[in-house]
């Protein structure tokens, strides 16, 4: 299967001169669920931003056959839905429905289609009964789901998520895992929660200091004690089967 994202020798340097990413090459196939693991400040979020055409460096990133550069940014963002780390920053409209409708409206769809897509997206994350609520009335778990719904309503091929498991209690995290498992889109998830990554993804990419350290099946990487500890991460057992 042809890769939906193909990154070739991509490097990025921050405006203040520090290296963000160095010579990243990565192919991601359609429908894959990938965990980007690494310690804080390793460059995971930067790589996600680059995939969403929010920052531009050297080398190439091709998303769904389109080169990710400033000119194609709008087209890239139709293919890649980015869920940011803090749902409070993702949910900026007065009500949930308006928030979920924001993306489809910007895509130029008609009101009926926008409403249908929004309600579908809210249905998938189980928030269709709360469409008129203001974001500050939602719980942490609901906010996380709502943030995902705002992207789902745009129906992107690829969804990137930055630390979606932070500030969630175990039950909410399990709900999130089952929700993400049920999605058919290509998922790229940056996280430093190894059990969460193991429960969700088949492939893991370990990043540290802006470089890819390891790339392979999740069980091989996360059980390699020496590798994990040298990059400030913990090992985890592979769950036999996960009950939801």
């Amino acid at each position, binding site marked *: 299967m042809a890769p939906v994202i193909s990154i070739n020798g991509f490097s990025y340097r921050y405006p203040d001169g520090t290296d963000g990413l160095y010579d990243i090459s990565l192919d991601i196939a359609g429908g894959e669920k990938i965990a980007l693991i690494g310690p804080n400040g390793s460059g995971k979020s930067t790589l996600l931003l680059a995939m969403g055409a929010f920052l531009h460096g050297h080398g190439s990133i091709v998303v769904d056959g389109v080169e990710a550069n400033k000119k194609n940014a709008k087209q890239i963002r139709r293919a890649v839905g980015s869920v940011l780390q803090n749902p409070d920053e993702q949910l900026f409209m007065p009500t949930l429905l308006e928030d979920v409708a924001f993306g489809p*409206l910007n895509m130029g769809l008609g009101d009926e289609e926008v409403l249908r897509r929004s309600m579908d997206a809210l249905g998938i994350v189980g928030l269709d009964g709360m469409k008129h609520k203001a974001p500050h009335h939602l719980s942490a778990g609901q906010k996380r789901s709502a943030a995902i719904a705002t992207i789902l309503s745009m129906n992107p091929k690829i969804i990137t998520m930055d630390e979606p498991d932070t500030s969630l209690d175990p039950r909410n995290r399990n709900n999130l895992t089952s929700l993400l498992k049920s999605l058919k889109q290509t998922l790229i998830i940056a996280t430093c929660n190894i059990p969460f990554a193991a429960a969700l993804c088949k492939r893991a990419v370990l990043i540290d200091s802006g470089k890819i350290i390891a790339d392979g099946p999740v069980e091989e990487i996360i059980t390699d004690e020496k590798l994990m500890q040298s990059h400030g991460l913990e090992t985890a057992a592979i769950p036999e089967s996960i009950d939801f």
Partner: protein
Amino acid sequence: MHHTVMDHLSMQDTFLHRLDARSKLIAVVVFTIVVISLRRTGVGIIAVSAVGPFAMLLVGRVPLKLAALQIGCLCPFIMIIAISSAFYDRSVVTIAFGAYELNTTQGAIGAVAIFARFAVTMMAIIALSATTRLSDLLAAFSSLGLPKILVMQIGLLYRYIFLIIDRACHMLGARAGRKLRYLGLRRELSTSAAMIASLFATSTQTAQRVSDAMMARGFDGTIRSLKKSTFSIADTVFLAAVCAYMALLLAVKGVI
């Protein structure tokens, strides 16, 4: 904080809450215009005009104590003006109330009338904001023709008040925890300035990420919104009642 109380009240479910925001907004604006145009100083007309907003407060289940407190909190400026006004107009007049007659000054009556009107229009606006969610008011604004960029600004402002005021409160708590006495104006000033500046910096970062979230969803500067109309029979009934009440006020204006 007052905004969380109002926000909470506006989430109730009563006849008033279910009305379209536009009809409530129009009703309160028209009511305020009528009350302000009653230049007469009679107490009777002010009492009659208090009935409407009072009824709105009760129907909308707004605690009367809250309304009274809010009127009390915001009255100092108008009080100063009203009271000083009384000093400048000392023409003696006789007022009659029932069988009682009282000699007082024109200015004193004027002061009482200004304050009474203030309380009445305050009741009306409290009733409006406590029974209407801000998101509905915003939708009303944009359908009444407010510039979209302004409507969006107000929406973002209200959305992020809850977040940023929380941060400010944490800072105030941190300052109170480490500072045990008054430090002198110079150091107090530099502490306050540093707090405001740091709040400014975090607000800028938040704004940057919100902007990323908007861009990620195809925002290009054009603000688009779903059309919605919730005008119902209840709204017609309500507006008819408001019209009748205004007609009554204007009719009795010359009499009492």
